[in-house]
């Protein structure tokens, strides 16, 4: 039994199933992020935890207690909505105290709690303003303040940052993380932004098409994706997924990628790279996955890697981005992006020697999309 158990939970609207059997266990104090593209079922799952949507089958438990039939107000949860959902007719103070009022908390205690929360989130100067008079970031703080007053078992966040501008989003992200570290409350957080997922979470559930594709720590999700969807969704720029063929080389298996001029690049994919047994896969079509930071220039390659391999490839486009330079090449019939150091000497239209960090490379089955190695 964990703090929050989601056991075989499903959701259907009539005949349409939006969430397939889902099993997630969250320990106390964890920060779980549900991430995925829109329509993947992440918000539905969050609403089911909140009690705003019914559970079609399966069970949701908080502290071991079945929650399926419990009203939202009695689950001891607090939720922060994407639109903040501040009551427009009440002042900030009214918004924060409304929940406590509904729970029958006596007035002096409410005042004390409001002062506490206002201090924590620095919203004291606008306690008596209406939400309409606040900026996006301030509203966001008030929405969190309202959630905080409840001392909930569980915090639920539904894309809380997606209405903010880019800079504020980064600031608020840090604040949410600070808040979690300070309070240690269990959080379930929904977002479609994979950066938010990686930076905030202690664990991530990547969702797609009503299924949890992979559940793991940010490190596992990023470095060991189980399938092509997770590999492609997490990370920015996303992982290069290139058509390739496995070949038997002199020292074990090699990955063969086609250059635009039909010549081949061969990269060893052997014991140093993977534990998987590829010995009988000669000639097999695979998808070769490599992240941009593992496709770099020779000085940029991490010295710790046991398996750096070099290849000359024609450069199509060079995009200097300040701290890094992104280079696009054509490999295996698709665009591949490499991330070089800012001062790398790549020039569009000329060949450049790329360093492939094969320790970070992966192979996927093009049919099932699952990871092979």
């Amino acid at each position: 039994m964990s703090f929050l158990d989601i056991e075989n939970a499903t959701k259907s609207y009539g005949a349409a199933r939006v969430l397939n059997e889902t099993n997630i266990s969250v320990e106390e104090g964890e920060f779980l992020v549900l991430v995925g593209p829109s329509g993947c079922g992440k918000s539905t799952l969050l609403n089911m935890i909140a009690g705003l949507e019914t559970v079609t089958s399966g069970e949701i438990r908080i502290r071991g207690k079945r929650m399926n039939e419990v009203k939202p107000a009695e689950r001891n949860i607090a939720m922060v909505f994407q639109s903040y959902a501040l009551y427009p007719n009440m002042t900030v103070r009214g918004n924060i105290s409304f929940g406590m009022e509904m729970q029958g908390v006596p007035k002096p205690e409410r005042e004390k709690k409001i002062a506490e929360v206002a201090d924590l989130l620095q919203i004291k100067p606008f306690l008596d303003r209406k939400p309409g008079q606040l900026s996006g970031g301030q509203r966001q703080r008030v929405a969190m303040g309202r959630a905080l007053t409840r001392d909930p078992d569980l915090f639920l966040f539904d894309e809380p940052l997606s209405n903010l501008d880019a800079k504020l989003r980064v600031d608020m992200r840090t604040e949410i993380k600070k808040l979690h570290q300070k309070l240690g409350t269990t959080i379930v957080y929904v977002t479609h932004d994979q950066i938010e997922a990686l930076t905030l979470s202690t664990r991530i559930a990547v969702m797609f098409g009503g299924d949890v594709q992979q559940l793991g720590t940010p490190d596992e999700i990023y470095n060991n994706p189980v399938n092509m969807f997770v590999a492609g969704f997490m990370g920015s720029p996303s992982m290069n997924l290139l058509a390739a063929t496995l070949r038997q080389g002199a020292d074990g298996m090699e990955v063969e990628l086609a250059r635009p001029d039909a010549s081949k690049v061969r990269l060893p994919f052997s014991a140093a790279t993977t534990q998987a047994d590829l010995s009988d896969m000669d000639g097999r079509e695979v998808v070769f996955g490599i992240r941009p930071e593992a496709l770099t220039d020779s000085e940029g390659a991490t010295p710790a890697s046991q398996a750096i391999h070099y290849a000359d490839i024609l450069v199509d486009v060079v995009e200097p981005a300040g701290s890094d330079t992104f280079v696009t090449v054509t490999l295996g019939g698709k665009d591949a992006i490499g991330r070089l150091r800012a001062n790398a000497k790549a020039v569009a239209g000329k060949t450049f020697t790329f360093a492939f960090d094969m320790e970070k490379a992966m192979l996927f089955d093009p049919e099932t999309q699952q990871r092979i190695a």
Partner: protein
Amino acid sequence: MSTATRSNPWGRLALYLVLGLFCIYYLTPLYVMLINSFKPLGEITSGGMVALPQDWTSEPWQKAWSEAQVGVEATGLRPYFINSFLMVIPAVAITTILGALNGYVLTKWSFRGSTLIFGFILFGCFIPFQVVLIPMARTLGLLGLAGSVPGLVFVHVVYGISFSTLYFRNYYTSFPTELVRAAQIDGAGFFTIFWRIMLPSSGPIAVVCVIWLFTNIWNDFLFGASFSDFDSQPMTVALNNLVQSSTGVKEYNVHFAGAIIAALPTLLVYVVAGRFFVRGLMSGSVKG
């Protein structure tokens, strides 16, 4: 594109002239009513309809208000004026609240078939008054409300609900559902959410609804004439009786005064709440 151009002063003048003419055109009837209500009857019958009174008098107003022969007794319009208020205030309040409640349920607690039910409610907007006269008379009789002010309130509530539901449903459609959900998590129940969150945010549409209902119910003649008794007649019916009374001379000055008294409340409601009216009708069309 040209920047702000200085317009031709003659064009301006012509514009104001035309506008002024139209104003006079529209205000003439009101002017005639007003000045004649302050004249002794003799001045009207001697042919000076448009002239200002030579002898100002408030007697016609007094007469219309408290002395004129309207029904059996010479009570003036006063009791009927009170009847109208006794009818219109509860009718407007009940209809508005019920409409808001309907709109709230239809948008935020929608259930299987709620669109169909809304369709049926809307249907009520298109039923002509005359069609329901006889069935309604029977219903009022069965309910024991025939010929009473509560009976009239009932009729107007039944007729008004379609409109008030339409107004509030459309207004609440654009009201963020997340607010209702947030309130649910905060622990507010169905009615608490309605009273504390929905209604306080419904100002503009409530004003539209109140003006619409108030004007319609106050000005209604057909239901008033059909379903009321001598002691429950609304203002409109009484005014008709005053003007139509066949005994003695026609006291035009009293009729004018009575007509103005009858029109005052709707005028007042519009002046007080009118600026919200346009705002309410426009709400939702513009972001903000």
